[in-house]
């Protein structure tokens, strides 16, 4: 190999120069920037969206849905391929916007960033931006300033694009008028129903129709395997109930931690505030201090004037109207300087000197003291005992887990030994199936899986001790078992015949209805019992959507016009449209404003969607569907 180098030195030299040169101008980072970017669930313009990022977004979406739906929230509903795709789609869009903002060099100046942060109410105190508050809020969110400001900068850059693309949408005035007139349109309609029941007499089912249906639709008549089981539950609660705590131990705990059973001292104070930011500049600070000192002088002369002076001079709008009163507060509730002064005063009615804090200059008067006090032993005895039991039970439970698991495994043909050893009751279930709908704990997949395994069904062995969550172990065994079975034909025959008969009757009703509709449309007379006419709006709540669609899609060039609609499972309905009323919008109608806003939103979303579609063409988007769907069975 070295011979090859030696013989082709010139080539090698030129080659070496070629590799070295670029580094002199471009640096190394551009070569390594794209390393390690593979294996994402999608790539957008060469950058990857990692699985972790996707799962985080999915979780956040689930949290939002949980918040919106409350108790009716079902996590399984959230893990459909459709939701996963929608969540990914959203991430891809965000990435596209971010890439584009970078490419177009969209930026946000420090001044804009500062103004935006200062205008966020969460960071304000008394209507002004407060740095300590800003820091505290971010800390509570677990964010550093750099991270927050980075995100905000990013959001503001996207806001620039959105402002032009989406919010900049224009809606023609006459389009609004037109949408108004068609959306609020009313049609005056009479109805005739042709219920399937009227055609039942004409139905003739073939002799073997039910049998054929039974044979082709076997799946519908299957009953799943079911079983009855007995089981024992070992839980932390069960262990805790078996424990008792000596009164002496409770007393000891009470004496050992007096701070846990007492309430800290609270004080009530009034103050007069002259506002001055610490960074406000020397002149402003001096002026504020002098004003505060002048007030203090007035107070020393006339101590009873505190409330009046506060009302007239205090720049704390919340307390000024109450004569400066701040109510009771404990330590930790106020800024440090204020707290020290307020808790430093000795007697009620005593007034401090001028105290400087982040807000400005305060004059503080102590108006009440609630001394710290202990809660009596009898009041907290129960709480302490329960807590000691809980701690003890947790310890004991950890010790018992292994021996419980072993007992149900070693004596696998009965639960009695485990029940006796751990003083547990053997309980029994009703018939349950393996479809996840059985009551807890038999909705646990692992437990139900073990119960329906051969080991438990045929060999009648105990399941293992399954952890079903919340510090609870369950072991069960099968008592009785019914295998999956087909319901016998004779049992279901009447049901099938009734369903088929109805289906047939519905068809007859539809044929009859369509025939009559055709005649009506030609202008021929048909003898029908029309209902009294009534006006129906497009947004009518009481009618099924397919009926509304039929009524409003009917051409009304000629009146009366007719429409017909199949009512699923029930028959057919005919409608006669006698009058069409399309209202004309008045400029000041609030409904017009609402419709304009709604229409503008639809158009804005279209424009934004078109913009995103253009970005998609600009940056290559690849989605790894295999990885996206595979993750489902994690």
């Amino acid at each position, binding site marked *: 190999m070295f011979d090859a180098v030696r013989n082709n030195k010139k080539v090698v030299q030129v080659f070496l120069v070629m590799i070295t040169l670029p580094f002199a101008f471009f640096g190394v980072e551009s070569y390594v920037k794209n390393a390690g970017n593979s294996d994402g669930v999608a790539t957008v313009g060469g950058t990857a969206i990692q699985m972790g990022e996707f799962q985080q977004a999915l979780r956040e979406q689930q949290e939002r849905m949980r918040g919106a739906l409350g108790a009716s929230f079902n996590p399984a509903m959230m893990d459909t391929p459709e939701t996963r795709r929608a969540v990914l789609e959203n991430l891809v869009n965000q990435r596209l916007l971010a890439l584009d903002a970078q490419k177009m060099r969209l930026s946000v100046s420090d001044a804009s960033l500062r103004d935006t942060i200062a205008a966020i109410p969460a960071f304000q105190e008394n209507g002004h931006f407060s740095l300590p508050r800003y820091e505290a809020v971010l800390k509570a969110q677990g964010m550093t300033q750099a991270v927050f400001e980075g995100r905000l900068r990013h959001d503001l850059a996207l806001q620039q694009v959105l402002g032009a693309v989406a919010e900049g949408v224009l809606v023609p005035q006459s389009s609004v008028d037109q949408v108004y007139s068609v959306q609020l349109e009313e049609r005056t309609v009479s109805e005739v129903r042709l219920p399937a029941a009227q055609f039942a007499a004409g139905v003739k089912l073939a002799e073997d129709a039910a049998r054929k249906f039974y044979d082709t639709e076997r799946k519908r008549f299957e009953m799943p395997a079911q079983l009855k089981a007995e089981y024992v539950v070992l839980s932390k609660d069960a262990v805790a109930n078996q424990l008792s705590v000596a009164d002496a131990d409770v007393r000891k705990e009470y004496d050992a931690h007096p701070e846990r059973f007492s309430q800290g001292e609270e004080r009530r104070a009034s103050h007069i505030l002259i506002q001055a930011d610490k960074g406000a500049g020397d002149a402003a600070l001096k002026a504020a201090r002098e004003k505060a000192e002048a007030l203090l002088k007035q107070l020393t002369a006339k101590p009873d004037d505190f409330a009046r002076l506060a009302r007239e001079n205090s720049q704390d709008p919340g307390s000024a109207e109450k004569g400066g009163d701040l109510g009771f507060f404990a330590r930790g509730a106020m800024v440090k300087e204020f707290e020290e002064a307020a808790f430093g005063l000795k007697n009620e009615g005593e007034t401090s000197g001028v105290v400087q804090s982040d807000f400005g200059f305060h004059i503080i008067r102590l108006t009440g003291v609630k001394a710290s006090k202990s809660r009596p032993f009898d009041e907290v005895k129960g709480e302490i005992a329960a807590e000691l039991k809980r701690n003890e039970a947790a310890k004991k439970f950890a010790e018992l887990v292994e021996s419980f698991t072993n007992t149900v495994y070693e004596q696998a043909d009965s639960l009695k030994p485990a029940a006796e050893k751990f003083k547990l009751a053997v309980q029994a279930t009703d018939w349950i199936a393996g479809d996840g709908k059985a009551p807890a704990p038999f909705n646990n997949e692992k437990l139900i899986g073990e119960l329906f395994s051969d080991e438990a069904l045929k060999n009648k062995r105990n399941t293992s001790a399954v952890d079903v969550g919340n510090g609870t172990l369950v072991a069960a065994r099968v008592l009785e078992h019914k295998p999956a079975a087909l319901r016998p034909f004779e049992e279901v025959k009447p049901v099938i015949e009734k369903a088929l008969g109805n289906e047939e009757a519905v068809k007859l009703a539809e044929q009859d209805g369509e025939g009559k509709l055709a005649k009506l449309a030609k202008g021929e007379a048909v003898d029908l019992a029309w209902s009294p006419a009534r006006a129906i709006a497009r947004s009518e709540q009481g009618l099924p959507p397919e009926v509304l669609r039929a009524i409003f899609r009917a051409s009304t060039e000629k009146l009366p016009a007719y429409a017909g609609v199949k009512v699923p499972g029930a028959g057919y309905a005919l409608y006669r449209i006698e009058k069409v009323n399309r209202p004309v919008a008045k400029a000041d109608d609030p409904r017009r404003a609402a419709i304009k806003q709604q229409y503008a939103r639809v158009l804005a979303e279209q424009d934004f*969607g078109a913009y995103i579609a253009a970005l998609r063409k600009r940056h290559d988007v690849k989605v790894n569907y295999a990885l996206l769907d595979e993750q489902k069975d994690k």
Partner: protein
Amino acid sequence: MAAFDLEEQEQISQIKGWWEQFGTLVTGAAVAAALASVGWQGWQWYQGKQTAEASALYAVLQKAASEKNTQKSREAAGALIEKYNGTAYADMAALLSAKVQAEAGDLKNARVPLAWAATKASDPALRELARLRLATVMFDDKAYDEALAQLQAPTDESLVARFADLKGDILLAQGKREEARAAYKAVVTALETTTKSESAALREIAQAKLDAVGGAQ
């Protein structure tokens, strides 16, 4: 020279010979590469500076827009289009300023930035949106034929429905019911299979308009 053996001396003379032949070329190439790199970096720096200035001006426009200040919006957008065209900010400013003018009822001044953006915006996607909005302003101005002319040429497929919807409204305003019906039908067809809720909403609206001009038949 004595430090080199024969073979090495031969190599040295080889290299010298090579350098005499190609030296100027190599030096020239290296200098050209260096110049190109410096030029590239300089261009990048210039672009960065331009967009940063444009960004600051755009912030002024955003503020003016939120205050519905037509005069200030017009000035900021005008400056962006004049001095910073080529940056994305000029394109965006045209759209945003037009919105402020049109909302205030000043259709003439809404037309100006849109007419510029519809042909000269550097982002083709924004060009299409500008054209659509220019047609909207012309429609409000009752310049129906002018507006329809803007909507003529085939466009980005994701805007087909939007264009057809507006076209239908304009044709209807001209009293051309048949043509309007065809336009609305085109909206419904374009969005027939959509899964997006915002597109479904537009389809429903277009369907209602279609129903009102005599339905699909």
